[in-house]
């Protein structure tokens, strides 16, 4: 039986189990009118039976899926002629792959002989048996679990507590998925980065000023070694981030101040959702805007002012990135301003401050930690941003502070290093992981400081 059918069947069984459990719970106390005699509501008895009908077979199913391929392969290998069983691991793997492909009807990269065909047939046969067995076991277990649970139904059964326990564990599992994924990501990046640092010294990576990761294919070609000094990338990232913050911080701050203190309820009601829409635009759209509108404009304006401007410039990318970040800065600042108790505002106004004095002398200083935290979060967002820079700032790893020249950033280089066909153990590919690790560390630190200041400040007025 196909596993989808199996899961569908189990779904039906669980629904049936729910109704059976519920009606039995009512039956044991003597009819729907006597529900008060039960420890738990009838619905909980239904869920209780349903859970016992589903969880054990589900566990069996997933365990089976995990071990099945290994066992079947081992059995197929056993049936092969002894000469083939003793092949080195690599060739044996290839052979098994071919058997599997032949069995499923895919392209096979070897001549098909009788032995080979027999092994493939065997493989199919084992698989079919395994599936039949699995279906029977799963459905049987479901029926058994459901029946046992059904029989346990009793007025004093603490069905609610048992169901709550299962729910709690389900929630714990769900929430730990994100945590474990994060740990997994960090570890995988870390291990690849360690491999990279065995090929390229850490000091060269951290302090080298030339970035040209193109390694030649043959060792005797020019530039075969590549050079992996990440300084230009980090400098480019900083340059673009700085330009973005120069745009985003003042504009975002003033927007937030206007919305929080000066605008009428109506203007606020229109402007806030608009800003949120701005925050929801995919960055690739900002990228178009940067590459097609802003970059040419920057070039025209720059050249008319007598500067030499590359067609892809840090300035264009930074400007657009700044616009992208404005909603983030303004909404975090708005939160910080609104968290200042209105008693501060009243106190300042009551002493005869004007609105702007109230704002600059009382509210902003009180909200400052929250604002700084918000800005740090925005910085880490800017550092991690990729799309706009790919489209508007170019790929040239120039070490420069000139906003009119093309620069590249860490994220962009990661993308270009990994796009296209690569050997997975070349220094060029591994460099991407080293860059990723650095990026992760930097943004992590910024986020921790940012969140810490935001939170600490929130507690202050509670």
């Amino acid at each position, binding site marked *: 039986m196909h596993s989808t059918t199996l899961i569908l069947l189990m779904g039906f069984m669980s629904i049936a189990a729910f109704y059976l459990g519920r009606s039995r719970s009512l039956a044991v106390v003597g009819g729907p009118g006597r529900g008060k005699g039960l420890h738990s509501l009838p619905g909980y008895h239904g869920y209780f039976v349903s859970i016992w009908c589903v969880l054990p077979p589900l566990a069996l199913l997933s365990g089976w899926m995990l071990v099945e391929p290994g066992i079947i392969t081992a059995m197929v290998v056993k049936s092969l002629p002894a000469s083939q069983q003793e092949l080195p691991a690599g060739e044996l793997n290839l052979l098994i792959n071919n058997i599997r492909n032949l069995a499923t009807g895919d392209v096979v990269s070897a001549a098909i002989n009788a032995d080979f065909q027999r092994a493939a047939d065997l493989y199919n046969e084992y698989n079919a048996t395994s599936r039949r067995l699995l279906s029977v076991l799963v459905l049987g277990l479901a029926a058994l679990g459901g029946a046992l649970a059904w029989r346990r139904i009793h007025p004093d059964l603490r069905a609610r507590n048992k169901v709550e326990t299962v729910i709690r564990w389900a929630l714990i599992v769900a929430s730990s998925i994100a945590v474990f994924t994060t740990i997994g990501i960090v570890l995988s990046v870390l291990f690849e980065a360690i491999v990279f640092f065995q090929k390229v010294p850490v000091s060269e990576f951290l302090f080298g000023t030339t970035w040209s990761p193109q390694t030649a294919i043959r060792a005797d070609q020019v530039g075969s070694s590549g050079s992996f000094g990440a300084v230009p990338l980090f400098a480019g990232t900083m340059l673009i981030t700085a330009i973005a913050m120069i745009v985003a911080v003042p504009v975002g701050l003033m927007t937030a101040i206007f919305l929080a203190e000066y605008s*009428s*309820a109506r203007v606020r009601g229109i402007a806030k959702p608009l800003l949120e829409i701005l925050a929801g635009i995919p960055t690739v759209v900002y990228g178009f805007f940067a590459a097609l509108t802003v970059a040419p404009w920057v070039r025209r304006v720059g050249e008319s002012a007598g500067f030499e401007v590359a067609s892809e410039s840090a300035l264009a990318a930074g400007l657009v990135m700044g616009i992208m970040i404005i909603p983030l800065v303004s909404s975090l600042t708005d939160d910080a301003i609104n968290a200042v*108790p209105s*008693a*501060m*505002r*009243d*106190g*300042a*106004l*009551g*002493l*005869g*401050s*004007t609105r702007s*004095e109230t704002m600059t*002398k*009382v509210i902003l*200083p*009180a909200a400052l930690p929250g604002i700084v935290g918000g800005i740090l979060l925005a910085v880490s967002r800017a550092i991690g941003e990729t799309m706009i820079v790919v489209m508007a700032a170019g790929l040239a790893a120039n070490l420069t502070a000139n906003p009119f020249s093309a620069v590249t950033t860490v994220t962009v280089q990661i993308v270009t290093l990994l796009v296209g066909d690569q050997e997975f153990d070349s220094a060029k590919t591994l460099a991407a992981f080293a860059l990723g690790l650095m990026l992760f560390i930097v943004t992590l630190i910024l986020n921790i400081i940012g969140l810490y200041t935001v939170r600490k400040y929130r507690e*202050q007025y509670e």
Partner: protein
Amino acid sequence: MVVASRKAAYHHKDGEMTETLVKKNMSASRTSAVPNYRGQQVELGRETVGNVRCANPFMVAENVNVFYGDNHAIKDVTLEIGKKEVIALIGPSGCGKSTFLRCLNRMNDSIESARVTGNISLDGGDIYDKTLDPVVLRARVGMVFQKPNPFPKSIYDNVAYGPRIHGLAGDRAELDDIVHRSLERAGLLKEVKDRLDDPGTSLSGGQQQRLCIARTIAVNPEVILMDEPCSALDPIATARIEDLMDELCEDYAIVIVTHSMQQAARVSRRVAYFHLGYLVEVDDTDKVFTNPHHKLTEDYITGRIG
């Protein structure tokens, strides 16, 4: 020495009252009976009982009405506040005491839905005059709030805040002098003179409230409005603030909202009883507490004292 003083620049010209606001005749609505403190219907009467006038009026409110949208929160209130007099506003919650208090320094301006009609004058000048900046008014009519609200700045900067924004001090020495004098008058100097640089929020609740009073008197106001200034304080801190009020009324007129009859009796010379937005009775404190003339006042006072 010439000090650029915003306050001086805006001082009222001749004290002539300008009729900028529409007077509405609301007295018709006073004919109906209203529920008292215990829910019994009591006749309101056409006029405020007692005496809304005083010998030496400094702030005069005439036929003041306040609306929050459709909610008519203050109904045709007329009341005079004397020079260097302490007047207590009492009444059940929601009767409009805070609203009336906020009219006196135009703090209602910052509430979008609030609309004020009638006339209020300070030392003869209309405070709702279009040409008058509420900022200046608030320097002349200071306010102390229910919960102590020192700014998250040092004790010194809290008190220096007002003089700084109004340009009352020419130099640092003068500012120091104002700060010290204000803290002294608020009875706080002894406790804080060694730690003026500590944050204002590091003080105890009662000290914070005295800091707020010091902050208010640092701009040299003529009237001080206090909205339940002791309701967040313990009895000892309350007693200190009450003593302080006795001293302050030598220089300032004080309007205090309070829920404590004892406090009203101790600190005020006159008492105004508000009920559902109406000003029901105003008279000398001893008269109101020993012999209230209006049934509503009597019910409230006996209900409160028990």
